[in-house]
């Protein structure tokens, strides 16, 4: 059987998650590899969520938030941008493939973009193959 990646998505309530809803209500197709978790704001995302996601078997992690300037709370995503940027560097320096982690700003009206990004990212992760570096295999929970 061909490899189907598990993608962990973490999306903010106000933009990206609503964008996902729009993709759904407009009947757009996107891969079912995505497991989407909703948070209230992209700045709610603790980088440990991402590490934990990889440990629990995600092959790729996609984070979505409002476009800078459009944050429901004003500035949340501006803090998030810094946090996620440094998270990316840490993952890379630890040896994780950079292609397994992506941040995208997707607004509530961008259902199309949501479907496209998920499709693209899933394909990218599929070519990278299974993520084995962080994945927990033996002890641990």
């Amino acid at each position: 059987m061909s490899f189907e990646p598990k993608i962990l998505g973490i999306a903010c309530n106000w933009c990206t998650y609503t964008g996902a809803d729009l993709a759904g209500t407009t009947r757009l197709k996107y891969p079912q590899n995505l497991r989407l978790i909703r948070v209230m704001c992209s700045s709610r995302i603790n980088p440990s969520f991402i590490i934990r996601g990889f440990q629990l078997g995600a092959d790729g992690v996609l984070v979505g938030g409002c476009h800078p300037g459009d944050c429901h709370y004003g500035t949340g995503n501006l803090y998030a941008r810094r946090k996620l940027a440094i998270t990316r560097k840490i993952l890379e320096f630890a040896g994780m493939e950079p292609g397994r982690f992506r941040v995208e700003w997707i607004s509530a009206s961008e259902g199309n973009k949501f479907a496209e990004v998920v499709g693209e990212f899933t394909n990218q992760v599929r070519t990278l193959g299974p993520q084995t570096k962080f994945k927990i295999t033996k002890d641990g929970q």
Partner: protein
Amino acid sequence: MTAFKKIEDHLRKEAKNLLEGGKVTLVLAYARGFDEKHPVPCVVKAAADADHLVFNEYCTYNMARYLTRYPVGTKIAVAVKGADSRAVVQLIQEGKVRRDDLVILGIPATGMKNQKTGEVIDAKTTASTINPVLYDVLLGDEIHGVKAGSPYDVLAEFEGMDKDARWAFWKKEFERCIRCYACRKACPMCYCDPCFMDASRPRWADKSPTDDGTLMYHLTRFYHLAGRCIDCGECSRACPVDIPLHLFHKKVAKECEAMFGQAAGMNIEDKPAMANFKGEDSDQMLG
């Protein structure tokens, strides 16, 4: 060459005066351990004890580490070398200590030595800041004309590695971790109580030293130190199994400096980089 003896005399004199005059209630510095090559961190509370204080090339501990153990408002004199002074600045930025409560005894020093190996600590490890960036009293003359070198040069080798080789390197290093948390204990910026590792809800990672729990601990700690690590190297020196944690911290510091335009602990007016954003931040940083 650093005039250690002169600094030591000056340190004792200052400590004595400050305690006698009631300016401070305690002095954080160093005392002799079981021999002079193994000094220990020391808290002096009585002027009469000031003569126990020492300063030599083995006094590597970052005494800023102990500041947050006392309630805000405690008047403290603290002896700090270059990097240590940056830790004080960073703690002030973070509101953990108040500038007014401190008498900062600055020590310009080069040629400090690792207690375990006897090696001189240079910029390759962690001696890129020679003169204290903030002080009230300088215990020795400022050192000029010594090139410290970039703290980041040592990273070239690791940045040049293939990602799989890098993973293999860190995996091997982390496998040796016995989760004693000495790195966390030695670090001036690790003051959280409780640490996320000690939390049971959520339980972020295994409490026993399993590989995945250790990975979670270290990666999260590197992240928690982003924009805050002042490159004192105490984490690596404290580690009983010699994991070169400072390398990873250096990498994170380098990226922070490049992306956010500020190094940790250089200026008390700065805001901590991760608790801030600027208009000029761009999506480029997301790579």
